């Protein structure tokens, strides 16, 4: 169905190849997962399938990409719209019309299908993806999972034989991700559609794939094979695979089921051991931040109600819950950006809403969902200098923190040219310049690969040990399990659970990390904990 014939791609004639010598055949009806670190060329590979690379993006493509026998050399993306359906990373930015039903019809209109055919296919697709209830809804009012399903439906109505998806679940909460993946699974099995998908959150998707393509990065060969074969050696792998490696299981487990069937001996071995928990520094007499009986209105909507939250020195608190449950609202309240209609917010003895400048920055800092929103200078150096001025600290402070968090970032780079992870770390460094007592992060792991995520986890743990209090809103259960001492779950603006991570996340399958699912009822959450316990055993034996 898709053939790559010795394909090399570069964006500038003088630059290095992004992809080199790709030889690849994807058969009809296959579900192929593309994995690789940031900048390894995942998006480039996906976009070359329908000819967006190089027709739309520019650049040089050597070799030949053929889709259903048509070469992208002489077929533009629009000429392949009836075979390849592309679902971009941010569905909202790619919607052309304004309601669900019209969006579903748009591709068919472009293809010139007869009105009766269009009508029938729209109805079928609404049913297939469970969008019937939403047909008249404006696209902007949909939740994340609904948007993603509408975007899939919008290309599906053209009856493409191939579906290309770029990180369809990375911005979604676990429930919405399940919803989207279940829909995809159904398409592959019921309709025999060929699916090519890139995703960082392997723990969510790898079990669905027939084959995995691992991209090593510029200049390196790619590997393709069965998920178990690729995952056995991949640099980028979900926790269950790492657990398999630590425990020495063969074949490498890629699903919870695989792992559980081999986990008996490990569980016996671990009986009597307790997970090591990060030592929390002395909490001090009063909490760094406290929220009491908080109520926030967004216009007529009650965004938060009766919220109580106390964060001590050295605490890392993970806020979890659906998209729109009020996580971001709570964070913005903590930095004083939103005025409560009832209740009080107190950070380091002050109400943050009245503060500005160094007064505010030394108390609380927030890395917003789009770290780029904080950045406004044209170079990293200028950004750091501005940050020193804002925080009223010694020139060079921010630059020193950047060097610590992201040593590879160079001064003259434009912040927009940084990778997603580097930009996040730059924004974090800017926040840290004033040494705020409370640090908030909104969805820090969106679009981060495992190595960057691991780096972030280490940074956060170090900060907590140094006495900062941290609150992070996240959909990433693995990150929460890794770093957070406490998890607060919000639903519909209310706190529905608040307690130690090990208790809260294990009590619901939706929020349980993979290691916990494999080793339950034992209280293990992360591969690191298991590793340390095994090392201990070895040391004593």
């Amino acid at each position, binding site marked *: 169905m898709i053939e790559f014939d010795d394909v090399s791609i570069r964006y500038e004639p003088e630059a290095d190849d992004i992809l080199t010598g790709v030889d690849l055949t994807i058969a009809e009806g296959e579900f192929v997962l593309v994995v690789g670190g940031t900048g390894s060329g995942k998006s480039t590979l996906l976009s070359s399938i*329908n000819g*967006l690379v190089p*027709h*739309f*993006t520019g650049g040089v493509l050597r070799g030949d990409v053929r889709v259903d026998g048509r070469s992208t050399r002489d077929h*533009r*993306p*629009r000429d392949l*719209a009836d075979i*390849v*359906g*592309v679902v*971009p990373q941010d569905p909202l*930015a*790619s919607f*052309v019309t*304004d*309601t669900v*039903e*019209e969006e579903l*019809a*748009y*591709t*068919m*209109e*472009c*293809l*010139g299908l*007869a*009105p*009766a055919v*269009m*009508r029938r296919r729209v109805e079928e697709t609404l049913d297939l993806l469970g969008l019937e209830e*939403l047909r*008249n*809804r*404006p696209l902007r*009012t949909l939740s994340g999972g609904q948007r993603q399903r509408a975007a899939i439906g919008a*290309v599906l109505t*053209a009856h493409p034989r191939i579906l290309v998806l770029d990180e369809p679940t990375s911005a979604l909460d676990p429930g919405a991700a399940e919803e989207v993946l279940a829909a995809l699974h159904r398409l592959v099995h019921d309709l025999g559609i060929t699916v090519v998908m890139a995703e960082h959150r392997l723990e969510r998707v790898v079990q669905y794939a027939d084959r995995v393509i691992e991209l090593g990065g510029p200049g390196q060969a790619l590997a393709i094979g069965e998920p178990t074969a690729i995952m056995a050696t991949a640099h980028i792998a979900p926790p269950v695979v790492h657990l398999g490696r630590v425990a020495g299981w063969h074949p490498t487990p890629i699903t919870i089921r695989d792992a559980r069937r081999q986990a008996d001996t490990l569980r016996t071995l671990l009986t009597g051991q307790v997970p090591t928990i990060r030592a929390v520094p002395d909490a001090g007499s009063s909490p760094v931040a406290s929220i009491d009986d908080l109520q926030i209105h967004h216009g007529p909507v009650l965004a938060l109600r009766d919220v109580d939250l106390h964060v001590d020195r050295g605490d890392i608190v993970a806020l979890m819950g659906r998209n729109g449950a009020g996580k971001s609202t709570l964070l913005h309240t903590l*930095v*004083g*950006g939103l005025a409560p209609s009832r209740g009080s917010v107190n950070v380091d003895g002050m109400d943050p809403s009245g503060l*500005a*400048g*160094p*007064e*505010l*920055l030394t108390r609380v*800092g927030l890395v*917003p969902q789009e770290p*780029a*929103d*904080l*950045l*406004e200078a044209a170079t990293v150096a200028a950004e750091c200098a*501005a*940050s020193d001025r*804002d*925080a009223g600290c010694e020139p060079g402070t921010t630059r020193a923190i950047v060097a610590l968090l992201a040593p590879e970032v160079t001064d003259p780079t434009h912040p927009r040219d940084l990778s997603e992870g580097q930009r996040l770390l730059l924004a974090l460094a800017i926040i840290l310049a004033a040494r705020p007592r409370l640090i908030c992060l909104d969805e820090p792991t969106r679009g981060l690969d495992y190595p960057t995520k691991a780096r972030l986890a280490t940074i956060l743990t170090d900060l907590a040990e140094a006495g900062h209090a941290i609150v992070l809103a996240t959909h990433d259960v693995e990150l929460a399990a890794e770093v957070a001492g406490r998890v607060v779950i919000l639903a519909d603006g209310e706190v529905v659970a608040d307690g130690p991570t090990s208790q809260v996340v294990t009590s619901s399958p939706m929020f349980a990390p993979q290691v916990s699912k494999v080793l339950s009822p034992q209280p293990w959450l992360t591969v690191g904990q298991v590793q340390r316990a095994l090392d201990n055993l070895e040391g004593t034996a």
Partner: protein
Amino acid sequence: MTTITGQVSATDRPRTYPGEARWLHPMAWWSWAIALAIAASVTTNPLLLIGIVVVAALVVDRRKPQAPWARSFAFFLRIAVLIVIIRVLAQILFGAPTGTLAVLSMPALTLPDWFAGVRLGGTVMLEPLLQSVYDGLRLAAIIVAIGAAGSLASPARVLKSVPAAVYEVGVSVVVASTFLPQLVADVSRVRANRRLRGRREKGVRALAGTMMPVLHSAMDRSITLAAAMDSRGYGRTADRSTGDRLRTGVALLAGIVAIVVGVFFLLGTASRDWENWGLAIVALGVISAAASLAFAGRRSTRTRYRPNNWHRADLWTLGCGAFTAIAFSAAARLDPVGMATSTQPPVWPSLPVLAVVGLVVAALPAYFTPVPPKDER
């Protein structure tokens, strides 16, 4: 395809039922609104102009859909108020004191001769002041009428009705119209986030700071959208020869030029002779433009999903608008004094019966048109 031919007719013209929620044809709303604007343009009677604003507001209030773009009406109302205020202020500051009734006296400042001897301030007379209020009201009423169309008919639904030949232009307009609210949202988000860097300053400096991230995200969004549209088949057209394209283009351009020239004759001259010529040229232009659009449209391979259809209520809406425009124009000929309220000397505006009937008719669509479908939000 044979099995579905029966359905084609069914979907092409779905039946409607009384009381059923459906979208009125967007062109019905637009022509109704344009007719209101025409009516506003022929009068300076403040009561009638306020009447037009009230009618527009009433219809919008009763028939606007619950969608984000429908909220723009309030924005147009604000613009309208601003227009009146600016017009009056300009009159107070720069206007010539022609009149006899002084309302306010301010110190005057006459600029030197090399600055055209413009006079600032001075005594404000009632007559020119009233005239400026009426002029401002007229422009405000036109703006409000157009704003009403904008919130009654979604820009995207209007796009569905434009001729296939100008579809490309229509798409850019619609994309721009969805882009603006997004840009506004971006600006407020970025401004809120400036707090996070401890900034409090407002004004030009703050604006410069917000521009960068806002423009960047707008840029990113447009690239994403363009790529998405390309991958979804936008711009697939049947092969057309360059000659064909050139001929349609020239015919369309000639048609538009003819319409403009004709309208100029119609409006710009007093002589009946020229008016007739003007009419003829406009007619020729319309035919030429329509023919080229139809010809070009035949070449497009696009089809339309659930196209808008004209039903009875839609036609009645169009008719109500047309009636109002005609009633106002007729009143302007029959009762020029009533329609153009005198300010020299100032009199209390009268109410020409024909125009009032026109206003009442213009308000009828608020009651007989179907309600728009409800969204869940």
